[in-house]
């Protein structure tokens, strides 16, 4: 039996420590990991807890992120509760195996500490790696601060391991801005946290020797399409109700309420910024200041990035006049991902909001409150004229002459 760790009601933890503590409290059986900044302290933390007797589990050191996820896939197919963490180039190396994990319906939890992808090499936070995972068939949850990184890990285990779901899940947090920023985190006791996640219920596990199974089979044009369709069916129909149920149960337990789409001052908002990660909270503070001046601004934060909350967003945005989508990733050749997703969510709804796109914060570049005030001024002008008053895609916080496209 693992030892219990006594925690204070509020611990000052950074996002990495919060995630590592959640992996300990969920009593993860296997972590196969390869270190990469800024996610390293998560798996290092799990290894330390294990070495000190606070976890009954296995820590498997491997030679690459590709091997780390491969090890996780093997351990999950064998029938264990499995998790790991990565960032950036390591995430990129993991991508091939991410599709195997979701296609094999293995509920692995991957903490992705979002970081830029080189070249140029950069260790700081942006959303390039998170966006790279968006077609991989994983559930993607996004934390805006260390408290969320802690809480969403428990939610992720509960949803992913549900036998109606059986899909892997990523918990994203912003590199450094969350992962290395210490803030107060309201803790759960080891017992309460473990009971919320529940005992791992294996399914089709290879260690059930009375029911031998072959995992990772090959299908060609005869059955591949049906397998992928069934996977999409689960992601599209089973996941959202389970996430909402887990959010409700978590709120009843802790008082902390999470939503598939987070909104702030959206009831009567004429302008809205849509973004992810720490930017959501900074935008909330800016909205408070704008509201004090009588400006009806709001914020929409994506909490569940995959499956994409299309209907929820269409409902939330139906009365907004101007929307700014903020992408912390270079779209390389098109509009930003959030622009695309929001445009797609609204296209058949009759909503006629003016929609534009901001590329910001690449490689950890600061998103200041002043930048956000400028964005809301653009949106206000768009709302008043009912048409785009700026280029469609603008770069903000960039040196030199203004850069924009479309």
């Amino acid at each position, binding site marked *: 039996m693992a030892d219990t760790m006594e925690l204070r009601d509020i611990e000052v933890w950074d996002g990495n420590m919060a995630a590592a503590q959640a992996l300990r409290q969920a009593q993860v059986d296997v972590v196969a990991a390869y270190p990469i900044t800024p996610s390293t302290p998560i798996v290092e933390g799990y290894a330390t807890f294990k070495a000190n007797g606070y976890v009954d589990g296995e820590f498997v050191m491997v030679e690459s992120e590709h091997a780390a996820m491969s090890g996780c896939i093997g351990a999950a197919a064998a029938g264990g509760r499995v998790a790991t963490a990565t960032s950036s180039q390591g995430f990129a190396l993991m991508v091939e195996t991410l599709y195997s994990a979701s296609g094999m319906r293995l509920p692995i939890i991957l903490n992705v500490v979002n970081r830029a992808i080189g070249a140029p090499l950069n260790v700081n936070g942006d959303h390039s790696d998170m966006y790279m995972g968006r077609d991989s068939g994983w559930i993607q949850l996004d934390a805006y601060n260390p408290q969320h990184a802690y809480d969403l890990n428990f939610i992720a285990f509960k949803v992913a391991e549900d036998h109606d779901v*059986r899909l892997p899940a990523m918990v994203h947090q912003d590199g450094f801005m969350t992962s290395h920023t210490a803030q107060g985190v309201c803790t759960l006791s080891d017992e309460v946290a473990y009971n919320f996640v529940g005992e791992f219920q294996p399914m089709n596990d290879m260690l059930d020797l009375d029911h031998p199974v072959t995992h990772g089979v090959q299908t060609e044009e005869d059955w591949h399409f049906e397998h992928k369709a069934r996977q999409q069916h689960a992601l599209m129909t089973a996941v959202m109700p389970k996430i909402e149920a887990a959010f409700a149960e978590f709120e009843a337990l802790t008082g902390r309420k999470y939503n598939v789409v987070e909104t702030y001052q959206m009831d009567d908002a004429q302008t809205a910024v849509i973004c992810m990660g720490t930017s959501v909270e900074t935008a909330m503070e800016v909205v408070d200041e704008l509201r004090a001046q009588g400006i009806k601004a709001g914020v929409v934060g994506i909490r569940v990035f995959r499956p994409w909350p299309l209907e929820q967003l269409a409902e939330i945005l139906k009365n907004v006049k101007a929307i700014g989508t903020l992408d912390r990733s270079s779209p390389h050749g098109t509009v930003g991902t959030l622009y695309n997703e929001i445009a797609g969510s609204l296209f058949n709804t009759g909503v006629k909001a003016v929609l534009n796109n901001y590329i910001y914060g690449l490689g950890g570049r600061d998103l200041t409150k002043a930048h956000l005030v400028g964005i809301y001024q653009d949106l206000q002008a768009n709302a008043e004229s009912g048409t785009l008053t700026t280029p469609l895609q603008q770069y903000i916080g960039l040196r030199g002459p203004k850069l924009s496209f479309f």
Partner: protein
Amino acid sequence: MEKAGWDGFEIGAMLRSFDGAIQDIATTLPEDRAYSQANSFTASVADWRINKPLFNKDYCIDCQFCWIYCPDMSIISRDKKMVGIDFDHCKGCGICVEVCPTNPKSLLMFPEQKDEDEALAQWPQKEKKEKEAGVE
């Protein structure tokens, strides 16, 4: 495999070997195992063959080479004795004949339609080792 819709199979790229629980599988003969429909044991590839191997036990020394080398586990062996060939799964590749070390071989390839008794009656005699000429 029975035709099913997109939701007619279990999730994941996963197949069960057996229907229901199994115990002591190692000591249960293949024909007595409850192989599932998804297991290739229930599928026949007999029609793939053009030539088939036939077994002549008069010459067999039970070395088990054919059993080891057969890529489709189609050599039936009991208590380390060669018994015969599983013609549901043999594709007629001829590897068993290739590796058979006896003289004459205990396994030989014949056309699929060849009568077994006729084949056994025609089995070749032991080859005499001749001094190879022309080799220095």
